């Protein structure tokens, strides 16, 4: 029997909502990737590993704090910060020496980081599956047109715009954001006016990685926290950044929407080849707009 026969307005609506909550995670992760790519010109493959570390940290913090309802919120607050700290060490320790190298070298360097991070995760957290629960009031479902919609997905739907707003404020209303945007366009000029570009880069890198950690923390209650969860997300995040326009945060939002929604709709209309839908959407976008949908920073 064909799955497509079951499409009703309610199912479609619900599917779009699910697609949008998935979009939230994709947007948060890929906006961080885009930020780093735009300002530092680093195609950071280790971004996916940081996402995974974020999820594991969330699990660890929540477990250490114990069963109280506050555990999840504490973990959500501190796990991404811990990821940011890791990235700060890596940036100051190694990355800052490599900024004048070719993209390809940077890409391979981040690949080597991935290899190290993944084995570290195995060393620290071992091989068991981990699972984390959302606070009680976010468990269970709402009924939307008679179909259940998990509360946690609704929470994700609300979080997405908040993060987007925060990023907008950061890039448009703070000094570091303005300098970072200027540095993305012309880093020589920024350093010529006496700003220490190296530290601006450090901050941007840390913020970008914070977003990866935040994505991992947010996804933790819905998934099996395990090694290998970095694999799928990193390629998706890269594709999103590419179709959105390299380095453009709003492009990342647009890309995430396209990716999340084509995936969700694909499941509904042609489940057997749903896996192909988002990739096809990416190819179509790039055939018509080779530089991505929105203006790329470089």
């Amino acid at each position, binding site marked *: 029997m064909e799955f497509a026969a079951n499409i009703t307005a309610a199912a479609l609506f619900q599917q779009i909502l699910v697609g949008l909550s998935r979009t939230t995670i994709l947007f948060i992760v890929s906006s961080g990737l885009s930020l780093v790519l735009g300002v530092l010109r680093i195609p950071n493959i280790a971004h996916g590993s940081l996402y995974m570390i974020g999820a594991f940290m969330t699990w660890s913090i929540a477990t250490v704090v114990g069963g109280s309802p506050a555990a999840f919120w504490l973990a959500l607050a501190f796990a991404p910060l811990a990821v940011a700290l890791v990235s700060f060490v890596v940036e100051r320790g190694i990355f800052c020496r490599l900024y004048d190298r070719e*993209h*390809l070298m940077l890409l*391979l360097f981040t690949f*080597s980081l991935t290899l190290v991070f993944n084995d570290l995760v195995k060393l620290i957290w071992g091989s068991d599956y981990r699972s984390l629960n959302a606070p009680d009031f976010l468990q269970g479902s709402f009924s939307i047109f008679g179909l259940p919609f998990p509360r946690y997905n609704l929470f994700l739907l609300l979080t997405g715009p908040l993060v987007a707003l925060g990023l907008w404020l950061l890039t448009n209303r703070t000094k570091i954001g303005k300098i970072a945007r200027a540095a993305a366009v012309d880093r020589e000029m920024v350093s010529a006016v006496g700003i220490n570009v190296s530290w601006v880069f450090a901050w941007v890198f840390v913020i970008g990685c914070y977003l990866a950690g935040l994505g991992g923390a947010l996804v933790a209650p819905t998934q099996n926290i395990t090694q290998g969860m970095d694999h799928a997300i990193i390629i998706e995040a*890269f594709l999103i950044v*590419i179709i959105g326009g390299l380095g453009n945060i709003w492009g990342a939002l647009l890309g995430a929407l396209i990716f999340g929604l084509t995936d969700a709709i694909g499941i509904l209309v042609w489940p057997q080849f749903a*896996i192909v839908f988002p990739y096809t959407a990416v*190819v179509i976008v*790039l055939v018509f707009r080779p530089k991505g949908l929105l203006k790329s920073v470089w």
Partner: protein
Amino acid sequence: MHNNPLTRPTWIAGAMVVLALFLLPAAVPRFYVYMAALILITGLLATSLNMVLGFGGMYQFHHAVFYGIGAYGFALIATKTSLPSWVGYLVAPVVAALLSLIMGLITVRLSKLYFGMMQISLGSLVWALVFRWYSFTGGDDGIHGVCPPEAVSSTTGSYYFTLSVTLVCLWLMYRIVHSPFGRTFQGIRDNPERTSAVGVDVRRHQLAGLVIAGAFAGVAGSLFVTVEGCAFPELLFWTLSLEILVMCLLGGWFIFLGPMFGAAVMMTLRTFVGIYTEYWTMIMGVVLMLIILFLPEGVLGLFKRKTTGDKPAEEEA
């Protein structure tokens, strides 16, 4: 400096290596013969990538797709048709070249990183199709029990076949790199605007380079099936593409045999470090970091600089 004529000592050393490789099965246990065949195949794949990467300056981030398609091309001919499996060796490079042409037509107008990411996304599409298309490709299980032609099915037979084919391919690639086409190709890498200004069709040259490299990757894929007897979707997964990129980096991508050397080092490390620890990818990661930090032209690049006083590769690029 790539167009330096081959000097006499180089010829002698080269002939000695080839001789040593031909004598190898007589001298070492079977496992090392098998390893040598795998190294040659992976090295051939990495060298074909380096044609577009090192010599063409194109960010081909998903070269493994052509390797995998070559492998499937051969495996499908050998298992699903009544044609003699020798036909597979012709089909593999042809389908890989065709795929490379199609992907190239879409991607070649893009620059640098966009080109690379587009290759990844198109390549992932191909991977998804292979992974999903059960009736044709065997899905995630892949194709097993592929019988290569009788003459090349034993370890030694497949080694000699691999060695011969690899040597011929390397020679062909060397000739291509040092042909007028190859020089134009490197000119495009070093200065696309200027090359374009003197009337060279940059896109067409790049497309030709992609197709040639794809075909050689396809040959490597068919050799892989000859040695291992199976084809599976991981052969066209993006992580393998990054691994061969690393091999090019390790050996040095401004040197013709750099990727072959990188493949040898990587495969040897993988096999022998893997015996002692489960954490060999971490060790590999650290080694890679050190190379990027301290040996950006690769190990052979360092040798070259030390022995000839050549300028570092960056200035050449």
